[in-house]
């Protein structure tokens, strides 16, 4: 699996801007790892056990330090189904305190979708295990002469987004709190998401690793397109609601000219508008 060393000891594999299928085997999200003098932390494991396995091999090709931590940035399948490749003695799974509830509420649905998209043999390998360490607020993990800082964010992209900041290189793993190039999916709260992006813009990072997009991009500029998109969805839906318009009217009119800027726009935008509509009518 190709990985890029985006900063000393920080490696990222960029997933494809596609939906999971038999050809890409679920390799559609970014995943990476940080190497300390004592241990390795993996951040997201890709959308299939086979992707996780290739990530594991890429890690072992670059370091003999043990993989002590597997951190999941949120419960979406394209980021967690590779976990099965890291089920070994001495590896802790780390996630937001809401992670397991969110995953289990959708687990059978995810498995079914994965089986249909990628294949039943691959689905046999999937394991959905609960995290052994949950983050309620903040957690520092020492990888040996390198401390990474995990922050459990309030509801945003999902209700269990976890960010990882490597102080040594100023690298912020945002998970799906930042989408670049690929159309985002609102599976939490759009207003909460905009608020978290405000908070994150103050993080003293020089670069971010988005959940989807290039392996690395300058921070906070990396979030500019996403902020614009989400803000336009909010403003557009509010306008439709003020005129007593319907969800269907909002889908047909709100921020549709964002289309050429995002891959898979038609697959996600109507759903985003629907989710924003249901959320904003309670303002």
């Amino acid at each position, binding site marked *: 699996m190709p990985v890029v060393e985006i900063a000393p000891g920080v490696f990222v594999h960029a997933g494809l801007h596609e939906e999971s299928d038999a050809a890409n085997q679920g390799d559609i999200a970014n995943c990476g790892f940080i190497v300390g003098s004592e241990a390795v932390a993996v951040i997201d494991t890709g959308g299939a056990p086979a992707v996780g396995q290739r990530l594991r091999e890429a890690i072992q090709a670059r370091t003999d330090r043990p993989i002590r931590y597997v951190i999941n940035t949120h419960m979406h399948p394209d980021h967690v189904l590779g976990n099965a490749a890291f089920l070994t003695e001495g590896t802790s799974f780390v996630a937001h305190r809401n992670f397991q*509830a969110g995953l289990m509420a959708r687990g059978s649905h995810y498995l079914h979708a994965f089986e249909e998209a990628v294949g039943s043999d691959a689905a046999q390998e999937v394991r959905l295990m609960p995290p052994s360490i949950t983050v309620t607020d903040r957690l520092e993990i020492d990888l040996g002469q390198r401390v990474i800082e995990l922050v459990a964010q309030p*509801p945003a992209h999902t209700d269990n987004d976890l960010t990882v900041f490597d102080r040594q290189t100023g690298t912020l793993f945002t998970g799906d709190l930042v989408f670049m190039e690929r159309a985002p999916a609102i599976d939490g709260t759009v207003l909460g998401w905009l608020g978290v992006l405000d908070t994150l813009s103050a993080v003293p990072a020089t670069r971010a690793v988005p959940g989807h997009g290039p392996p690395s991009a300058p921070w906070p500029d990396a979030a500019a397109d996403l902020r614009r998109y989400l803000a336009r969805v909010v403003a557009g839906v509010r306008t439709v609601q003020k005129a007593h318009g319907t969800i269907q009217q909002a889908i047909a009119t709100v921020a549709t000219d964002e289309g050429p800027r995002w891959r898979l726009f038609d697959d996600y935008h109507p*759903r985003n508008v629907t989710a924003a509509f249901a959320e904003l009518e*309670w303002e």
Partner: protein
Amino acid sequence: MTTTHRSWGRRPLMTAALAGVGLLGLTGGSAMAAQDDDARWDMLRDMYFANRPVEDAGPLLSMEAPTRAHDAALVPIKIATAPGSDVTVKALHLIIDQNPVPMAATFRFADGGDPQTVETRVRVNSYTNVTAVAETGNGRLLKTTRFVKASGGCSAPALKNPQLTVARMGKMKLNLPDAVTAGKPMTAQLLISHPNYTGMQYDQLNYYYIPAHYVKAISVRYNGAPVLDVQSDISLSEDPSIHFTMVPAETGTLDVSVEDSNGRRFQESWPIRANSGS
């Protein structure tokens, strides 16, 4: 009422059939799917209407539904009645044919002679027909049907922000048009915050199915007189939304009372001030 227990997460019969014939090509698939749809409808008709004939509604009923559900947990459906001089519509049944509990809601109108428009949001478990059945004043059953494709995958019918939804349970909102004119029909929207748990959502963290907990009755009164009564079930989306038709007087009060499946009652009233219609 009879309910069939089937997981929201598992593939229902209909989708299984579609997937199975996918290899045979579209034509074969459509023909077979249509047969399945007919068999399912026959079963539902027997279950809900005890073998009474259900005729095509023709222009008496119209229904708007998206051909593809962008969010399977929130699919807007709009139904309008057009009663004539010889026919009134006293109730409307909204049925999501392939859902585990297909009967989503029954709307009963105070005056079946007036044209009524109702709109709500439903959960759609798989590719399905959505059927509206009107009950006329003289006891006929008339139906119209739309086919809705669920987009599947990530749009699992789970709550996006469960803590917020539960904290807000029972709150209501009433949205009125900008111009309310006495004596003129208007469309109002009632929103009720409620998780509408289906009973099929598994909480593996605590090893149990979250018990079904949903809005089961909504009563709308205007100046004490009935406007609309709704009987609902788990196929309505979380935070149920109902658009309905009413005719305001110059001043009046709209009272809404809601009962959920746990016996909790929620009530709210709104004064409505209308412009003089004269």
